[in-house]
């Protein structure tokens, strides 16, 4: 005990702070991890879902394709129906567009605006997109429509994850 670097008071302060901090962390850590779990959960893998659409029936004209899949929302499992607008390009590539407007999330449809034929049209705020899903300048949407990943199996069209264009 030649050099007293730490006084008895300091020692008690350090140990109490340390133990107290440890106990507080032990209390708070589980709660924080509990709260942020949705952020850290691995995102659902891009499972492809079969539609009822035969690839051979697709043409250059976009058609509405509805497909159902099981959605897990927390403790609820429900069957959901999503929609895609699908067509074949001239070089045979399949294009499947999400109908969710990139402005505020309404539902767009093909060729429903008489004044602007052959475009995707959103009735909520008159947003428009060209056939390849690119938003028309001067209308509300700020980005092109999302694209579905597509796959063909046994002549049937499969749709996967949404990819922003």
């Amino acid at each position, binding site marked *: 005990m030649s050099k007293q670097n730490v006084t008895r008071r300091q020692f008690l302060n350090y140990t109490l702070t340390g133990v107290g901090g440890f106990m507080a962390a032990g209390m708070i850590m589980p709660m924080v991890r509990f709260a942020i779990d*949705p952020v850290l959960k691995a995102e659902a893998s891009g499972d492809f879902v079969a539609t009822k659409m035969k690839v051979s029936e697709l043409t250059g004209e976009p058609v509405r394709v509805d497909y159902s899949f099981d*959605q897990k929302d927390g403790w609820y499992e429900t069957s959901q129906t999503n929609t895609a607008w699908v067509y074949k390009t001239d070089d045979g590539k399949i294009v499947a567009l999400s109908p969710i407007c990139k402005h505020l*999330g309404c539902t767009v449809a093909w060729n429903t605006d008489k004044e602007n034929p052959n475009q995707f049209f959103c009735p909520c705020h008159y947003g428009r997109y060209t056939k390849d899903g690119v938003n028309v300048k001067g209308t509300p949407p700020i980005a092109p429509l999302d694209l579905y990943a597509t796959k063909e199996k046994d002549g049937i069209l499969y749709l996967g994850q949404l990819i922003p264009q």
Partner: protein
Amino acid sequence: MINKIYDWVDERLDITPLWRDIADHEVPEHVNPAHHFSAFVYCFGGLTFFITVIQILSGMFLTMYYVPDIVNAWESVYYLQNEVAFGQIVRGMHHWGASLVIVMMFLHTLRVFFQGAYKKPRELNWMVGVLIFFIMLALGLTGYLLPWDMKALFATKVTLTIMESVPLIGPALKTLVAGDPTIVGAQTLTRFFAVHVFFLPAALLGLIAAHFLMIRKQGISGPL
């Protein structure tokens, strides 16, 4: 009778100084509408608090019937409004009070701003007030989803889209608030309910306490 009970408690606990400290002080002449009618502008802060108390009470009673679950939320709100005695009144208090509290708080903010009452030494109280403003807006936002009708759902979808557009942390922030990266559903509703009913009111009460402590400590700003 009440006096006797009070005396009995006071004799043992000496509670008189406690409430005197809180309640027994004069209202300065320049903030008393009885002296100058224009002093009614000083009432907005108190009115904000008054409506906040109504919100807390009516909200407590609403949770006796409300269920934060996607299948039952709307039905439970429908039931409490249409089948329970005075349901329309109690839900109405909470519904209209939510808007009114924003109005009163805004008027209070305007008064403090235009009278320059936020200036030194009261800057900290202004900052706490701004935090209270944000908490109130968050309460309005989270409460809006709870009836789980179309308006609530799509208003929340729009808000979540706005949150998602925050640079860098946007998608994570949206998932944290909604409880799911893509779905606005069961977990969103329970989250909003928990935040609306426990987290935000707790923060609000703490901030209001700080707001009041500071105004008592510093006193109300002088006449213009």
